[in-house]
């Protein structure tokens, strides 16, 4: 009997696909359900943000950074503001620093909620996603009260933040934290402890520490592989050195493989708790005072360049800015976490199934605007 001949299929997954998290396309080559090759095709959401940055004055680029990763707009604002502050040597008042940490960590919770919820929804459980959105909605309410926006906050300013907290806002943040901290356990009972969910993830697509570093993975994806690297600890900025928190890393949760999809997921769940801890400390010690440093009306930083990186929910976001002493930057290069996560998918997905590819994309938390910029 001659061996049965079967064909390798080519099919497009995305851009219009429910679980590519935005407009991302993979050209799949599959043998049955098994993936032989997943060729990522990016650029559907390319808006030329780096070029726009060269055309607008430094402060005017702030709203564009919202669109860099709209799920974590404040982290992106902050990264831009910090880069320019380093470039121009601006000192930020302590109250503004505290507000930045509070809002950034709230935004991290909101972003991780989307991430873990979307992973659950990709695994076929839709309810956890809606529960995550319900809690995120409360964060959005807090932000709306603070700055009027619910998604693209445009909150940070070069040298400070745009608005001080309204009366009673800190109490409401505290109220949210008191509400949300037990909700993490409720969420875990709903989905994280679910046998099917764990089995779908705990051995799938492990990334070794060497591989993670080789591909330049950052943030929770890197920590999921057991590498304890967090810019808030290892290259501190803002007031993070004064705050106590831990850096959760993957350790083969639930008898899984180190660096598997489940480890990356668990790192995010644990980071939720750490963010709550950070916000509580900030609320306890926030000083009175100015929220905005004195910054010239037309900012012309001295000739020079800076690379400044911060820890956003999807890992390191870095701005490389060159100034010619003009009011617009000469060149801006943006480095984002999703981009490096995207680059590893091709290598990672070989030999796994289509259902696993969905888990890989979800657990790496790739989102299109960060990839394409």
């Amino acid at each position, binding site marked *: 009997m001659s061996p*049965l*001949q*079967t*064909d390798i*299929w*080519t*099919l*497009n*997954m*995305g*851009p*219009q*696909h429910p679980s590519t998290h935005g407009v991302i*396309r993979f*050209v799949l080559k599959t*043998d*049955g*359900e*098994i993936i032989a090759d997943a060729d990522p095709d990016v650029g559907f959401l390319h808006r030329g943000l780096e070029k726009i940055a060269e055309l607008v004055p430094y402060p005017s680029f702030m709203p564009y950074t919202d669109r860099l990763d709209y799920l974590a707009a404040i982290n992106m604002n902050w990264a831009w503001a910090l880069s320019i502050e380093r470039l121009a040597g601006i000192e930020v008042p302590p109250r503004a620093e505290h507000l930045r940490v509070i809002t950034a960590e709230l935004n991290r919770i909101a972003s991780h909620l989307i991430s873990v919820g979307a992973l659950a929804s990709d695994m076929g459980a839709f309810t956890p996603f809606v529960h995550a959105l319900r809690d995120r909605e409360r964060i959005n309410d807090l932000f709306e009260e603070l700055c009027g926006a619910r998604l693209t906050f445009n909150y940070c300013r070069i040298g400070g933040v745009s608005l001080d907290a309204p009366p009673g806002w800190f109490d409401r943040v505290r109220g949210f934290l008191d509400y949300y901290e037990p909700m993490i356990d409720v969420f875990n009972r709903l989905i994280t402890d679910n046998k099917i969910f764990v089995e779908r993830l705990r051995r799938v697509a492990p990334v070794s520490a060497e591989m993670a570093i080789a591909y330049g993975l950052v943030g929770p994806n890197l920590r999921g592989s057991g590498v304890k690297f967090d810019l808030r600890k290892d290259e501190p900025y803002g007031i993070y050195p004064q705050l106590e928190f831990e850096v959760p890393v993957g350790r083969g949760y639930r008898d899984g493989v180190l660096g598997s999809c489940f480890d990356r997921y668990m790192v995010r769940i644990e980071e939720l708790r750490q963010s709550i801890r950070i916000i509580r400390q900030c609320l306890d010690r926030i000083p009175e005072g100015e929220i905005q440093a004195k910054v010239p009306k037309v900012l012309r930083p001295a000739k020079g360049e800076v690379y400044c990186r911060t820890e956003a929910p999807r890992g390191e976001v870095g701005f490389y800015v060159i100034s010619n002493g003009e009011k617009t930057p000469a060149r801006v290069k943006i480095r984002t976490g999703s981009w490096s996560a995207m680059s590893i998918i091709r290598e990672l997905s070989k030999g796994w199934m289509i259902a696993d590819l969905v888990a890989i994309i979800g657990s790496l938390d790739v989102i299109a605007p960060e990839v394409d910029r």
Partner: protein
Amino acid sequence: MLLDYIPVLALMAAAAGLALAFTLMSELLGPKRRSAEKQMPFECGNPSSGNPKRRFSVKFYPLAVLFLLLDIEAVFLYPWATIYRELSQGKGWMMLFGFAEMGLFIALLALALFYAWKKGALEWD
């Protein structure tokens, strides 16, 4: 006997009739604006990369064969299961006769399943 099936057929005819009526109604009421793009097979917004009607790798082929074998067993199993209640209430050895006869058959089937398991037929590769 066969008259029992008339209601079944009537229901199925009614269901098919209803389905047909609804499709006809939708044919009459719905718009018909055909275009080449609309009739393209959906492949996430891209032009199709080839017709799917080609040799496709079905990884669970051994399982499908196993299914055929195990499902045929139902043919033998059901008549026996139907009268087992009477068999088990027989006198003396007759009580165990029904059990032993079919127990052996089921044990052989289970053994075959075990063999297939050990041979790796249950693995997805």
